[in-house]
């Protein structure tokens, strides 16, 4: 692809590595945030840590990484604590409490930064919020290798998160899904909550100090939501969300290089494109997830409707044979009148039945094959048994018999037909006087 010929593993490789580490570390925790309906916490914390950074700066008077990191992490935890406290004691809606806390802390931080700025030149943009593109420039020596500092920091964060998620998997799972049950089993839901909040704060601060906060806010939620579309099992969801996160980091960096060239520009923000890539993968998951995906659900409904229509065709042909054994085929115009469905749907149903060998062309219409007759016989038998049953056992009025049986016939297997026959004392005819065909012989 245009643009990728300049790919440099020493530069782009490290950028992608930093992105992947940050994305996976965030997504791991994000699983539990999303399940606890606290998806906005990452965003709130990334705004709220400002006074912590400013305070650390004011106290130490220097732009040291460690005190600033500690200050930010402390305020991050404080954000979670304050939110929880206002929610519980002030009885404020969770979103409201979060909104109050993070905007107030952010405003406080702004004022402090302005005060700090007359002591030392403090450019918040450079100090507080690193850029992922600059990853390869700041390296530390590890043995004989030069490894970017960012990658080292994020690896440590990822290792901690992974360790906690693995060690406390059961506790986190229980407290996320059923805090009451967790409490009754002797798990301290409160302490789990604060452990999670602490990790979220640390991950958020470590990530956006190094790779920018758009990325971390996105990775807490978007890959997790994509995984949530795909599965009902927590373990699968965690693995899937990590994969989605890693994939969006890789795709994002490639996208940042490639996409702008389509409209004639140079590359653009990697972190932004990683968020967009995550959104793209999420969109795919929304459409194509095996069970909950919208397209998949739509397709499933369509196939189901097709099956019903095809069975209706079989039943119509069977009844036609009953009426006029010499002229078993039905013309397509006759089928059209009785089916009340669009041309495309009918065409699809005919094609499907012919491929299965249930019907065959005959002049300008269709007739049943031997195999089709057996299936149709079962359907009609089910239909008439249901009518009989609904009248005798359920006491349904004659007017409603047909429409109900018409629906039920599609879901009636051989076992159920036998039970129906037993219940209705194996009648020969249905309430309308039509003969009930015997079970087809194979």
């Amino acid at each position, binding site marked *: 692809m245009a643009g990728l010929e300049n790919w440099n593993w020493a530069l782009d490789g490290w950028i992608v590595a930093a992105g992947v580490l940050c994305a996976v570390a965030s997504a791991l925790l994000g699983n539990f945030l999303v399940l606890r309906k606290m998806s906005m916490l990452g965003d709130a914390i990334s705004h709220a840590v400002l006074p912590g950074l400013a305070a650390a700066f004011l106290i130490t008077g220097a732009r040291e990484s460690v005190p600033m990191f500690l200050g930010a992490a402390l305020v991050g935890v404080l954000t979670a604590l304050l939110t929880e406290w206002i929610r519980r004691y002030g009885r404020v809606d969770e979103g409201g409490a979060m909104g109050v806390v993070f905007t107030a802390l952010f405003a406080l931080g702004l004022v402090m930064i302005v*005060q700090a700025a007359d002591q030392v030149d403090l450019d918040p943009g450079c100090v507080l919020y690193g850029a992922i593109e600059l990853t390869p420039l700041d390296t530390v020596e590890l043995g004989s290798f030069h490894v970017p500092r960012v990658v080292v920091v994020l690896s440590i964060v990822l290792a901690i998160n992974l360790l906690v998620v693995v060690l406390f998997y059961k506790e986190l799972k229980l407290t996320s899904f059923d805090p009451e049950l967790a409490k009754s089993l002797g798990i301290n839901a409160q302490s789990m909550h604060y452990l999670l909040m602490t990790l979220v704060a640390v991950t958020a601060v470590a990530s956006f100090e190094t790779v920018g906060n758009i990325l971390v806010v996105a990775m807490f939620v978007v890959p997790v939501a994509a995984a949530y579309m795909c599965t009902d099992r927590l373990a699968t969801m965690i693995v899937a969300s990590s994969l989605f996160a890693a994939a969006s980091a890789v795709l994002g960096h490639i996208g940042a290089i490639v996409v702008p060239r389509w409209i004639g520009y140079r590359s653009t923000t990697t972190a932004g494109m990683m968020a967009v890539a995550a959104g793209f993968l999420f969109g795919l998951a929304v459409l194509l997830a095996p069970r909950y995906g919208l397209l998949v659900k739509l397709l499933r409904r369509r196939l189901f409707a097709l099956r019903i229509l095809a069975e209706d065709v079989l039943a119509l042909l069977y009844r036609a044979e009953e009426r006029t054994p010499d002229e078993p085929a039905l013309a397509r115009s006759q089928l059209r009148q009785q089916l009340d469905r669009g041309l495309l749907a009918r065409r699809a149903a005919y094609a499907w039945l012919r491929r299965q060998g249930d019907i065959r062309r005959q002049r300008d219409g269709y007739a049943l094959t031997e195999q089709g007759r057996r299936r149709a016989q079962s359907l009609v038998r089910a239909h008439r048994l249901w009518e009989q049953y609904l009248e005798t056992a359920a006491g349904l009025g004659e007017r409603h018999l047909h429409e109900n049986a018409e629906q039920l016939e599609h879901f009636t297997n051989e076992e159920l037909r036998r039970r129906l026959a037993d219940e209705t004392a194996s009648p020969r005819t249905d309430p309308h006087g039509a003969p009930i065909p015997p079970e087809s012989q194979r």
Partner: protein
Amino acid sequence: MSPAGRLAAVLLLAMIFASRVSDPAVAADETRQASITDRSVQWPTAGQWRRLLLLEDYNTRVVLLGATMLGFAGGAVGSFALLRGRALMGDALSHAAVPGIGLVFLAVTMAGGDAKSFVLLLAGATCSSLLGLAVILFLRNATRIKEDAALGIVLSVFFGAGAAALGIAQQTTGHAAGLEGFIYGKTASMVASDALLIAGAGLTVTVLCLLLFKEFKLLCFDEGFAASRGYSILLLDIALMGLVVAVTIVGLQAVGAILMIAMLVVPACAARFWTERMGLMTLLSAIIGAASALVGAGMSALLPRLPSGAIIVLVASVAFVVSMLGAPARGILARAMRRRRLNAKVHRQHLLRAVYEWLESHGQAPRRGQHDESDQVPIAELLPMRSWSQGELRSYVARAESRGLLRTGPGNLLRLSPLGCEEAAANVHNHRMWELYLIHFADVAASRVDRDADAIEHVLDPTILAELESLVHEGAAARVVPTSPHPMPHAGET
């Protein structure tokens, strides 16, 4: 925008914004001559105070009017958003506006037009905000994604797209600088047309809120009922969120993202503490929003080194904290005090009942309406009657004494005053009426009623009591204390 992340931009631009809001008030003052690196706060002079309070500067008037209207509209809309459980919607939608701005800028540049056309950029921001809103509602209604995750997704993905678009825009002409200003608060002074735009939008939003008040109220409190009355929940949701978008967009270009979120959330949360009535809450929320904006903007005009957006948020936060602690209806202190008072009453009544039961078991039960003091009761013997510690018991006795219910004497003894006798008898009466009711009508075993009655005796009101009496002993003398239906566990162990 540089890839440094949105916060950097918010920070820088809020600072720039601060200096611009403060500019007008001090335009002619000596602070202007100070070094640009000097950012220490200087107390305003009397002259500055006068200029502010009398609104002498045209620019101050404009800024105050704009900020106040914005606070008013934000507070009003925010109260509905909060009760609908959408407090953070403004957060997501304000971020969702960014790609619209970036894309419009790119498109107009490529078409060779004036890429900073105010109207076009505003239209782009509105469109992409509305798109974000549509995505949120779609995800919530059509998939299994919950609302909070939908907000987070729209916020981060749209913002990422916006950052990417602005990243491209920046390389195009070199004139993209100032776009962030447009997003995070205009760097030029808020001029009369801005203030008028904000005032007009605020007025429109307020009028719409009034017109749709009944519908929004239904939407907030009983969605199902609203649907059963034939309202379309989706349409109402869209209308409410549309108002949020309107306020956000107008506010974004004037005061910046974070301030805008705070204007939607904080006043509404503060107002919630004061009242249980929706109409009053909306009004209060609007007033708190307007007042915070007025005071905050005024303060930053006086103290030019402080960022005005942040000051407005901090003033609103102070209003929130004051409300949370001090509001009489739902404030923390008021609730704590009510609980304390109830606890004190419960302990007092327990003490009186214990005294009564001791006296009763010694054949000296006080009567209601007696005029002399009861017999002596040794305090030490009350101790085993309930699970209270010696210290607790002593403090309850002391408190009852200060209310004139009893008198302690030498030898660790106490006597009930006539008032104490009355209250003790009444309390035991309530307790036993409830016990009898439980035994006769709720089929609770006699051995278990004591504890149940313990909880309810303090809150029986006279009408219930009268009903109990007519139920339990039809026509018997109402003021006579019935004998206990179960054996007394501790009394009599002398």
